[in-house]
């Protein structure tokens, strides 16, 4: 019921929205919860397990009952707190976890079966018959569990992440937070004030009390106005600080556009990484319910929530309201109700010495012990010295006292301590380095106390930063002492709820204790207490008290309650913002990319790069046809391939040669200027890390080539070796991968293609195999390397990247004129397999130089990284799987990579496994499938027949073991 003339809503701006298909009216400034309440909608949700009818319980992000689904279609957003969702025209909301409807929910039969569904019942049943678990029991459990639903469609909304930095982060803008921010801001500090709510002011917006002689809300608005005008202050509303991390890093979720019908391109949410030199937690406190039989009915809510709806939203949660509790908050609530013209049916105060009143009946030393009303509260029963009595009421405001919001202080494993006076846990200093606490979140419940602590903590925090802040005078405010009598669970039969969302009752906790789940962690895990969407914010302390009672221990001895990030649930989309689609990792394009795409080449990922798979020619229907043609082209004419993605590292300095001798197994200090050498690099554990050619361009200058995959790791490794192992060496290195566009020109006609393209005569006496040097390419300064990954006469020609596309086109034109053309990764792979050249398919991190037959490349003349460990007994010898070639014997469907090898006639089982294939391809040159494989004692078994078995692709092939170099073993062709 809406009350006239009250609240911080804009009555000039009516807003209409939908809930479960019905249109409702509210005002700008309303949440879905307040607007539904104004329309006297009590039933808004169903509980998780028993599907009990539930109504709004609180007024903040800790809401345990009123979870809704917002929006439709792909964008539908499940489990949104009705208490946090601001209404706007066109907003669409629905209730969840009910079927067929909120009012008639079939699964509410669970409520009748409650005796059989107590704590941990599922650990004790559903075991017979065995086959039924996956087929019957689990599917039923899964379907009935869960709350809201995802749409199942790709996320259509924009999310964002950002970084922010400040001297002081103030978390929460209640009285303590506002005072802290104001004090720090006036001192000139760089301040961020983050507030979860739409409005700053915290409880002041929900109470009638005065601050500094004016309405609390007005005082707050005044402070906010002053802060807004300061350049050194950043105000962040609708922003929840969700986690505290190391060295002053905080995570914060900003709900940027959830309250907007038209977002105008704004992200829906922004996840902030805030780095703060100091932080003050002013998160306030959460009022706790009291456990009694049927304490979960729609209409039963916290007393502070009732005041908030009255004072902030101008809504009466009921027409005959009863108030129940153990502290003076109940009387404040009654007074506010009376002042708002709402009938107060009774005030039930468990304190014998509670103050009486002439305005409403007060029952002292009494406790509510039951309630009635299936879909909305109709009456409550209470018990006092004079026995049981019943009162008709449609709303019960409950206060079991307050729990400081210590959550963030627990994020680094710190444990809050029990405070007898407030019957709750409070943080201790230093739980989060650099963060202090002020106000209600550390047990100071008076407004005056919060204001002065906020100011004081700001001064202390700034002082540690060398900023002196003046003591600002504290405005006059309520300073009443907080007195509370323990009141956790009212005795009696029936179920009394602790964790409303997960349907955990007092009985469940007691039963857990009786089954030896007596430690807090065991109880939580066995009953799921505290694991629901509110993460125990409303229930952990009470549950702990019940457990303490059940185990005959005091609360402090029983344990403490701790919390893990995030403080409120955070969408995966916000934490993962930017990654949807291609944003997960950078895309790297070669200079020839567009030309390759224009030629119809399918581009495939090679690490972060894209490389052409093959270049389909007219009439070719399969990749194999293109691949075979490209291979033949290279073997018989000339082919061109972009090899720019290989890593290139410029290494210079007087000790460059010595440095390379140490990182490579073989010698490079002896390499002549103008020559290139193949190098093998080991990890310190003795296995092969990478291979490639390194060219000596000058006395003190080399350029190293790495594989595409290892470019980054190899540079990191070189820097490690230099900085950590031999910093005395005078050598410098830097990547030049991006500087050069480099193309392989391979085939018998390679020299013909290049001859009049470059300014030098490429006669073999000037440019023998493995020669390298500077050269001019159509007038542009470049480099030429006579190296080959195909076994043919081949050159790699490099020019500054700006000319890459131009040169690639030119090379292609000239190649085609010579009966050749472009070739892609598929052909490159076949060409190298024919020659037995290895890639990371072979050097996959488990092989040694011995395994690939290169142990002779490990120079005996010097030490090098990995040499000693490579000499371990287990890393060489006949038991090792060694690189071999495989040729099929007789007609076979194909060879496949990832198949296993067995002796002829042996069963294809693990015990008989002899090795596996790593690379295969059809060789048009040899007119046969060829395979590279690792085979136990393989080099000793050339000529032997083995069987290749690929269960997955259903291929079995008899193969003969041979040397991995299938084509031109003498290597004549490469020399021309």
């Amino acid at each position, binding site marked *: 019921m809406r009350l006239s003339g009250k609240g911080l809503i804009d009555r000039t701006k009516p807003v209409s929205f939908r809930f479960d298909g019905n249109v409702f009216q509210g005002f700008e400034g309303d949440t879905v919860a307040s607007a539904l309440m104004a329309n006297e909608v009590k039933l808004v949700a169903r509980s998780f397990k028993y599907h009990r009818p539930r109504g709004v319980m609180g007024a903040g992000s800790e809401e345990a009952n009123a979870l809704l689904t917002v929006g439709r279609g792909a964008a539908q957003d499940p489990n949104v707190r009705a208490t946090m969702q601001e209404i706007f025209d066109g907003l669409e909301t629905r209730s969840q976890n009910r079927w067929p409807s909120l009012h008639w929910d079939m699964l509410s039969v669970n409520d009748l079966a409650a005796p059989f569904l107590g704590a941990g019942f599922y650990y004790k049943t559903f075991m017979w018959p065995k086959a039924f678990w996956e087929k019957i029991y689990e599917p039923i459990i899964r379907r009935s569990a869960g709350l809201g639903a*995802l749409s199942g469609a790709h996320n259509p*909304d924009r999310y964002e992440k950002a970084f922010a930095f400040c001297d002081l982060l103030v978390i929460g803008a209640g009285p303590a937070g506002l005072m802290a921010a104001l004090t720090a801001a006036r001192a000139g500090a760089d301040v961020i004030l983050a507030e979860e709510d739409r409005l700053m002011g915290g409880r002041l917006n929900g109470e009638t009390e005065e601050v500094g002689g004016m309405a609390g809300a007005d005082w707050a608005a005044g402070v906010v106005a002053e802060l807004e005008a300061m350049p050194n202050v950043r105000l962040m509303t609708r922003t929840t600080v969700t986690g505290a991390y190391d060295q002053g890093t905080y995570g914060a979720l900003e709900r940027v556009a959830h309250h907007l019908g038209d977002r105008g391109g704004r992200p829906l949410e922004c996840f902030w990484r805030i780095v703060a030199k100091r932080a003050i937690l002013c998160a306030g406190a959460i009022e706790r319910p009291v456990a009694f039989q049927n304490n979960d009915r729609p209409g039963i809510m916290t007393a502070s929530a009732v005041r908030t709806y009255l004072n902030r939203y101008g809504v009466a949660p009921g027409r005959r309201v009863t108030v129940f509790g153990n502290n003076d908050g109940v009387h404040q609530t009654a007074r506010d109700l009376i002042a708002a013209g709402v009938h107060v049916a009774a005030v039930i105060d468990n304190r014998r010495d509670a103050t009486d009143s002439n305005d409403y009946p007060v029952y002292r030393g009494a406790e509510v012990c039951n309630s009635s009303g299936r879909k909305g509260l109709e009456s409550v029963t209470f018990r006092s010295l004079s026995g049981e009595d019943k009162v008709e009421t449609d709303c019960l405001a409950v206060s079991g006292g307050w729990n400081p919001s210590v959550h963030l202080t627990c994020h680094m494993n710190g444990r809050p301590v029990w405070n007898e006076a407030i019957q709750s846990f409070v943080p201790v200093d230093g739980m989060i380095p650099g963060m202090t606490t002020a106000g209600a979140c550390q047990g100071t419940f008076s407004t005056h106390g919060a204001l002065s602590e906020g100011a004081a903590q700001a001064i202390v925090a700034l002082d540690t930063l060398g900023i002196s802040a003046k003591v600002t005078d504290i405005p006059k405010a309520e300073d009443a002492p907080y007195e509370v009598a323990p009141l956790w669970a009212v005795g009696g039969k029936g179920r009394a709820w602790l964790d409303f969302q997960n349907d955990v009752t007092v009985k469940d906790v007691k*039963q857990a204790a009786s089954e*030896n789940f007596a430690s807090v962690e065991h109880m939580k895990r066995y009953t799921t207490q505290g694991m629901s969407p509110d993460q125990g914010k409303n229930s952990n302390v009470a549950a702990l008290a019940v457990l303490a009672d059940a185990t005959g221990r005091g609360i402090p001895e029983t344990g403490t309650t701790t919390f*893990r990030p995030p403080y409120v649930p955070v969408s995966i*989309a916000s*934490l993962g913002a930017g990654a949807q689609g291609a944003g997960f990792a950078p*895309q790297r394009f070669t200079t020839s990319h567009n030309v390759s795409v224009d030629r119809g080449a399918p581009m495939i990922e090679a690490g972060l790069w894209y490389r052409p798979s093959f270049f389909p020619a007219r009439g070719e229907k399969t990749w194999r046809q293109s691949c075979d043609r490209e291979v033949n082209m290279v073997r018989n004419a000339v082919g061109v391939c972009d090899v720019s993605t290989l890593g290139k590292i410029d290494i210079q300095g007087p000790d460059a040669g010595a440095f390379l001798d140490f990182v490579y197994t073989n010698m490079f200090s002896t390499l002549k200027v103008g020559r290139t050498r193949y190098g093998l690099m080991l990890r310190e554990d003795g296995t092969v890390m990478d291979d490639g050619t390194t060219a000596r361009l000058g006395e003190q200058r080399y350029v190293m080539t790495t594989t595409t995959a290892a470019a980054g790791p190899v540079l990191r490794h070189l820097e490690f070796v230099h900085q950590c192992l031999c910093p005395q060496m005078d050598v410098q290195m830097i990547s030049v991968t991006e500087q050069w566009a480099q193309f392989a020109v391979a085939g018998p006609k390679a020299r013909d293609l290049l001859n009049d393209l470059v300014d030098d005569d490429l006669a073999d006496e000037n440019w023998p195999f493995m020669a390298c040097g500077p050269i001019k390419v159509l007038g542009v300064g470049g480099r030429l390397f006579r190296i080959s990954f195909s076994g043919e006469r081949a050159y790699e020609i490099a020019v500054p990247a700006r000319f890459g596309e131009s040169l690639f086109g030119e090379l292609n034109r000239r190649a085609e004129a010579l009966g050749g053309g472009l070739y892609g990764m598929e052909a490159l792979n076949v060409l190298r397999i024919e020659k037995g050249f290895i890639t990371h398919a072979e050097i996959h991190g488990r092989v040694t130089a011995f395994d690939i037959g290169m142990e002779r490349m490990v120079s005996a003349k010097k030490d090098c990284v990995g040499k000693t460990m490579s000499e371990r007994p287990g890393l060489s010898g006949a038991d090792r799987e060694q690189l071999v070639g495989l040729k099929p014997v007789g007609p076979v469907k194909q060879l496949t990579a*990832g198949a296993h090898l067995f002796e002829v006639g042996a069963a294809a089982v693990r015990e008989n496994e002899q090795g596996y294939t790593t690379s295969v391809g059809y060789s048009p040159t040899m007119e046969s499938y060829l395979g590279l494989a690792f085979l136990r004692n393989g080099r000793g078994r050339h000529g032997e027949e083995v069987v290749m078995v690929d269960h997955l692709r259903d291929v079995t092939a008899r193969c003969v073991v041979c040397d991995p170099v299938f084509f031109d073993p003498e290597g004549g062709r490469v020399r021309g």
Partner: protein
Amino acid sequence: MGYSGKFSGWRVLKEGLTGNKGWQGHWREVQPKPEYDLVIIGGGGHGLSTAYYLAKNHGLTNVAVLEKGYLGGGNVGRNTTIVRANYFLQGNSEFYSHSLKLWEGLEEDLNYNVMHSQRGLINLFHSDGQRDAFARRGNMMINQGDDAVLLDREGVRKHLPYLDFEQTRFPIYGGLMHPRGGTARHDAVAWGYARGASDRGVDLVQNCEVTGIDIEDGVVKGVQTSRGPIRAKKVGIIVAGRSGQVAAMAGRRLPIESHVLQAFVTEGLKPVIDHVVSFGMGHFYISQSDKGGLVFGGDLDFYASYAQRGNLPMKEHVMEAGMTLMPMIGKAKVLRSWGGIMDMTPDGSPIIDRIDGIDGLYIDCGWNYGGFKAVPASGWCMAHLMATDRPHEVAEKFRLDRFRTGVGIMDEEGTGAQHNLH
């Protein structure tokens, strides 16, 4: 049967009708005795299953499990609950295969519903090279007698239509499906083994921290604890992330570095992910619990840590992987994140062995972040080793000295001797 009586649907009905007053503790509360035949240090999944199989398979019941905190409070209670047998190296293959077989009979064996759910696991691959590597793995799984199916892109689409097959950064080429892979209710595994061991006479001692290991002339005599000295003929160290510290009590350094691995769970959602799915281009694996929460994880935070909590960069990386692979989970909200202490070895494979030079001292550690699915076989094989002084045949390659000799190194990732890369 035992102290807490047999569990069954009938019992649940009967107790329900009588106010659930008949339930007993799932295990006996005990005071530690001054002496035992065997002492297990560590009341986590592996320690409890070791105790259970010592009693069940070897009739050794004069056994104590000493737990510093509460039973099952370590990694068994803080993981992503995945159960699989999809290894490809000799040594790992037979061991995890054995473990999966034990899982398949675990509920009946323990009379405890650990909710082992063989919903199928799909490892996605994103290049031809990855496909071939997974093919090698799948073929080994079949060689070992387990199950594997190689799915192409369309095959994956049939099972996981919600993946982003169009815009994702690393296109989905296909997946290796392991139909018998799945999940289990992690806490229940610890509790079920605890109940089974306790019923057979094993003493489970909580809040009992081991502070020293008594060794005389190279022979174990017992342990010092926060609850006094306890004599024992044999002592087993089964403390996962704490292995280095406990081994140090015996003067040993281990090939282990302890790292933090984070995991995440979202608010409860109606069924949307029916398998266990893992991404091939960055660590990300996800399943949906029976309660409806999406349970997922990623890679280590990569720095040595005992804090059981992580930092934002890895959280973000994991969520980013999720968003590029299956953007439909964007509006699922992370409810809780936590961290476990992973005992990382130089080759990513575990250790079940005697400690050389100290008679009666054994160690079971180095589970990296594959420990949960190994719980049954690890206990089975550790119990065998402690009872018979011979390694069990499916665990004989898990030797401590393999790093020094280089014999039998099992580096499934191929990343070499850098502890945090496995």
